[in-house]
């Protein structure tokens, strides 16, 4: 069955179907565009490090970096070079792993069917031989080395380790060099059987091509036909207490300007449904953006005082098992910045945006959203983000549109009551260093 939903006034149509194997397919027609994009999503990310099978209550623990390793392994076929096979079809393929998913994607200006079938083939006959595993481990070790030189990324993980005691968001997506040695062929097989079941996966297509015809062609492929045994699983999160692991971490780095990241940890003791988490995320973003965003008086004041610069960034994340708000900036006045942030966050309880600003901000969200549909790949990424979680993007947007200023009251209260952690990377000549020297 094929469902079509037309969204006005945006004038975009979403077409959905489900293959016999259980694979969900969402397609967005983009008439006139040359590029066609496809993303195949698997709900296996770095935080999925422990699962319990429903039928026998059997636990499996995946070493750090397993999802990312598996993503690499599926590309690594000793018989043929997958990237080249895609190139021969005129498609450029790549993959990535985040904390909550693995994604394989390609774009092409030729036909979309042939590379899609190739992608399915690739997932159906992986090579988990020892040689293949060892070769890929060596490549990932280099990747880990490369990331160690990326200071903002290491700042982020230090902060996650400050905020959380045990939530797997603490772990580097690529794993650690030591953990890579615990990833065995058996574990990869298990992960493949459980997470890469068509029923758990989602295919998002966008571009100018005959969509229903493509669906028909895909239906013929074994990946869309066969129903492998399905292992229903659940997670049993190790819930965190309502306090942070390490409130302040200062590290001396080879920098010219200090880097500061502050995180607010929102308490969780139950699994949030996707829509519930997405709405919480929107409310936190609206509130924080109004309070400290580029159209706020607080930001203007902090800029004038030289506490922050154009790198200042607010990000929010609300997921099934965790939720946090992050502030980041480069700064020459780190201690003052930290003090100011703490002060502002303590006062957020009493903050409510004025009606006009709030409406303008919702207009901004609406407009930015329309802008994404002018790009085949950005629209594809947007749909991937939400539909993998089972959220209808347009429903979410309507819910956001219905929000009123008063709806942010509770969010403000929660934020002001939540514990914080800070990571401060200081340069050799910064004030933090002087303080440290006095103490020692």
């Amino acid at each position, binding site marked *: 069955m094929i469902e079509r939903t037309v969204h006005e*006034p*945006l*004038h975009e149509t979403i077409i959905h179907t489900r293959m016999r194997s259980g694979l969900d397919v969402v397609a967005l027609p983009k*008439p*006139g*565009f*040359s*590029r066609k994009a496809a993303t195949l999503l698997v709900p296996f990310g770095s935080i999925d490090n422990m699962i319990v099978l429903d039928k026998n209550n059997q636990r499996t623990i995946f070493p750090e970096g397993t999802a990312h390793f598996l993503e690499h392994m599926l590309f690594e076929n000793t018989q043929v070079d997958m*990237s*080249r096979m895609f*190139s*021969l079809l*005129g498609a*450029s393929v790549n993959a990535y792993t985040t904390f909550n998913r693995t994604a394989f994607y390609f774009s*092409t*200006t030729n036909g979309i069917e042939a590379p899609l079938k190739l992608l399915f083939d690739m997932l159906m006959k992986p090579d988990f031989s020892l040689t293949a595993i060892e070769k890929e481990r*060596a490549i990932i070790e*280099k*990747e880990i*080395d*490369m990331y*160690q*030189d*990326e*200071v*903002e990324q290491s700042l982020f993980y230090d902060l996650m380790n400050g905020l959380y005691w045990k939530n797997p968001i603490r772990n580097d997506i690529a794993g650690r060099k030591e953990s890579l040695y615990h990833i065995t062929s058996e574990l990869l097989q298990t992960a493949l059987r459980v997470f890469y079941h068509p029923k758990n996966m989602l295919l998002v297509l966008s571009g100018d091509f005959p969509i229903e015809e493509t669906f028909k062609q895909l239906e013929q492929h074994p990946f869309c036909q066969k129903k492998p045994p399905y292992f229903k699983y659940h997670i049993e999160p190790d819930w965190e207490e309502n306090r942070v692991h390490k409130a302040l971490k200062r590290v001396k*780095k*080879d*920098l*010219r*300007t200090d*880097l500061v990241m502050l995180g607010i940890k929102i308490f969780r003791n139950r699994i949030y449904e996707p829509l519930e988490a997405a709405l919480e995320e929107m409310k936190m973003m609206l509130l924080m953006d109004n309070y400290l965003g*580029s*159209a*706020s*008086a607080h*930001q*203007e004041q902090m800029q*004038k005082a*030289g506490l922050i*610069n*154009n*790198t200042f960034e607010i990000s929010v994340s609300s997921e099934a098992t965790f939720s946090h708000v992050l502030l980041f900036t*480069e700064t*020459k006045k780190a201690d003052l910045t930290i003090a100011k942030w703490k002060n502002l966050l303590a006062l957020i309880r009493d903050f409510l945006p004025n009606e006009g*600003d709030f409406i*303008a*901000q919702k*207009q*901004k*969200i*609406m*407009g*930015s959203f*329309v*802008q994404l*549909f*002018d*790009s*085949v790949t950005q629209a594809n990424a947007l749909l991937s983000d939400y539909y993998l979680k089972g959220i209808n993007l347009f429903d979410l947007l309507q819910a956001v549109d219905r929000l009123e200023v008063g709806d942010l009251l509770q969010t403000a209260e929660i934020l002001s009551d939540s514990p914080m952690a800070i990571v401060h990377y200081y340069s050799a000549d910064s004030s933090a260093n002087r303080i440290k020297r006095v103490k020692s």
Partner: protein
Amino acid sequence: MKATNKTIQDINVHYHKTTQFKTVFFSVKFIGRFLPETVNARALLPDLLLSGTRRFPSKLQIQKELNRLYGTDIQVHTSKMGLNSVISFDMTLVNGEFLPGKPQLLEEAVQLLSEVIYHPKRIRNRFRKNRFDEEKRQLREELEADYHDKVSYAFSRFRKQMFQDELYRYSANGDLESLEEVTLERIEDCYQTMCFSDQVQIYVAGDFDEKLCDHWIARYFFGSKKAKISDWLDRETRPVTAMRDIEEFGDLNQSRIIVGFRSGIESADNLYYPMSLFNTLLGESDQAKLFLKIREENQLSYDISSVYVPNKGVLMVMAGVDNNKEEETIAKILEVIESFGPDLVSEEDLQLAKEMMRKRIIQTYDSLHQIVQKIFFDERIYGHHQPLKTVLSLIDQVSIQEILQAKESLILDTIYRLRKAGEAT
């Protein structure tokens, strides 16, 4: 798609009408000479202009207005093209047709952009000192932070040395070493030059009413009669009598290496497409020879790639490698380039590289911003917008012999290494 070029009040106006998109792209470009003494002023100026207008005297108020206009976005940046400095004010806004209530946004947005450019908030006919200091601080911190990203830091160190006597040593984003020399007076001069001496180009792309647009441009913008344009290609070079061999140290895990070649083949050259294909085959994809030989076969590097800069006629290979693997990797890079010929590159490789390039060019037409970039570039280099068909057939005709001919132009100029400090101590 329909393209129109016209002159309105000494401004070269280019319309590119299409109904494929839900946004409208409106770009104003000021073109002047690229000079070392104005690098910083021209980098700083557009940001200073965005920090307040007469009607919206602060960044905050401009931002609120942009929010109200459904997230209209203004991006400013200064770039170097050939021997020219181009200050761009790029505005993207949603076509109101696709919003609830169908608000008409274009005129208000165009007016706001013109106010940013021509009616900044000034006191006694001068920019505000505190705003200037603030933007200067932002620029300084931005330039200093370049050091934090080892990939871009290594590149800027390399650039300063390979091109030490050429304009190309400067990034149009600004120069930290001479930033202190920028004063309010210099900014004033620079602003006068931009408004009254620079060449002005306006590009509008998307679905809009041409007549109304003519009218708004005439009403809100003006150009200059005396504008002088420098060469669009940067042909400064040096006779390479000896290769430069450079080693520097920093606090990093992986070493960065950059190998720089002179080629002299620039955008308007007959060998431009062969050279671009050479670069694609060498280091621009996961099928590239450097990637296969150095990452896949020898596992010397995780990230290795090459870049060809057609407006300067240079090619660079860059990689991150393990400590003490620098020389082995460099030797391997040179070996791959040396052996680059029919034995190494199959007909299939060539077809793949052409396909990649075709795909990239076809996709240009999927983005209003990129369409405008392409038209701007083509008009500067070739005098007119090169139709897609022409470009595709030029790519198609390239032979392996021409690619090898392009390769023969390479002269090794500089080998740069940024290594981990303090191993010995």
